[in-house]
């Protein structure tokens, strides 16, 4: 068979796949649009109204609300700091227990992985809903929900970092007669430190965002301020809150990127 003959059916197959993919996307759009009562023409028609709403009601942000925002903002940041520190310490332990090179027993590994996956796959806001009936509305619930959410993802990140270490180095330490703890201290940890720091910074970024929105369902902080202002139709105040969130998120993203570049 010549090359040309072999290419033709391949090309046909590929174009058929493209068409099938396109058809699937179009069908999915129509079906899901129907299910969520969303129609693209309606959305396009709504654009002028939304723009008018943003430019007349939201903008300009009310700078006079800044002093009111400061304290909720500090709360939000503090919640992110506390949860990141606590979750880092806890998930460090869990990660060493469940990463393949350092786990004491494969069964422990499976159990902790499953546990972390459960924590991770239930969103932090749902954790807030679960915890509020017992602990009441407030910052405590916010911090707790953030810790639980971060614990799930950080255990996974850390464990993956540990699993990427150079096994030969661990082998070398073991060959000199190093104990489990010596392998951990001199082999695993030095190789993982920069990876851990990068993940902690990344988690801090996520936690700042998450703690900003946790306030909306009763966790306190700037999310609560935004929700509250919107409910009272004080759109300019809400816009100021949103602008502050955006600026803080961008600043933290930028700083953490610089630090990561410096250490990696």
């Amino acid at each position, binding site marked *: 068979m010549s090359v040309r003959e072999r290419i033709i059916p391949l090309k046909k197959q590929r174009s058929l796949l493209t068409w099938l993919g396109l058809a699937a996307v179009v069908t999915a759009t129509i079906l899901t649009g129907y299910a969520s009562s969303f129609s693209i023409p309606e959305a396009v028609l*709504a654009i002028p109204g939304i723009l008018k709403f943003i430019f007349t009601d939201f903008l300009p942000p009310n700078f006079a609300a800044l002093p009111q925002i400061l304290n909720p903002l500090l709360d939000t940041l503090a919640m992110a*700091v*506390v949860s990141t520190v606590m979750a880092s310490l806890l998930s460090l332990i869990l990660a060493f227990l469940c990463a393949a090179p350092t786990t004491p027993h494969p069964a422990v590994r499976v159990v902790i992985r499953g546990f972390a996956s459960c924590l991770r796959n239930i969103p932090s806001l749902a954790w807030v809903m679960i915890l509020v009936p017992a602990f009441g509305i407030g910052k405590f619930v916010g911090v707790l929900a953030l810790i639980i959410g971060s614990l799930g993802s950080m255990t996974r990140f850390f464990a993956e970092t540990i699993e990427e270490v150079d096994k030969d180095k661990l082998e070398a330490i073991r060959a000199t007669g190093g104990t489990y703890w010596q392998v951990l201290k001199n082999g695993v940890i030095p190789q993982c430190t920069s990876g851990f720091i990068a993940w902690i910074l990344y988690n801090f970024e996520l936690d700042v965002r998450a703690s900003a929105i946790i306030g*909306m369902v009763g966790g306190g902080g700037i999310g609560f301020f935004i929700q509250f202002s919107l409910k009272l139709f004080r759109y300019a105040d809400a816009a100021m809150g949103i602008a502050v969130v955006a600026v803080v998120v961008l600043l933290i993203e930028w700083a953490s990127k610089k630090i990561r570049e410096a250490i990696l």
Partner: protein
Amino acid sequence: MGVEKNQGGHPVNTRKKISLVPARTGLIKKAVLIGVLLLFIASLFQLRLELTGTLENIGKAFTYLARMVRMDFSIWEDVLVAALESLSVAVLATIISAVPAFFLSFFAATNVSVKWLAWCLKALCSLIRAIPTLIWALMFVAFLGFGPFPGVLGLFFHSFAYLVKAYSQSIEEVNPGCIEAIRATGASWLQIMTKGVVPTIKTAAISWTALRFEFNIGQSAILGLVGAGGIGHVLSVNMRFFEFEKGGFIVLVIFIMSFGVEMLFNKLKLNQDKKLLKHD
């Protein structure tokens, strides 16, 4: 003491331990640790967490959790409808943001677009992304009222900005030699894009979209908590009325949705890796 001579007669320092890391690194490490500790304490002071009665509340939390584990499946019809609504919101938001993002990303990639235009688009997208999805949703709920419609719009903005950034990054990673080679044949900009760039970034674009879909599923499940419909709304209502058995069932459904998508894409990614291995 201290200095002895070895077999060759060279002096050997037996007392002093030589640190394997430079002294400065140790100092920085200590400074960072102390800094983080101070920040942590300051944050605790800022929060002034109310800890009285916490033990009692933990007890309460466990009784409630125990009730949540005894799931009540009687409302499965409502939950199913709400879950499908959340799923639809996620699918729809992913599609309507991915399509325009794909086209716009060519203008936001510095290697195939004009510098200032790329810069402006990127800055705009960073700004949109800096505002969390749920705040977008909340804004649209304030404007359009309750329901899934503001939910889709809320997800749309953040997804769109994220995907423009992701796609344009993939475009920037395209081998410049490849673009140069097609240009050398006299191809127009459009031809370079369709024949050179698109085939190269196709796989990366699909996996970015899949990743975003995974994220959108998680977000769509909680949109209901700010009044944007879906399964989050059902959860919020049931937990507010202390219907823990029903709440437990809903949490299970949310978990299955999120976990299922994670598994599905892990498998897809695995298949992709296997394909790559075969070609090599």
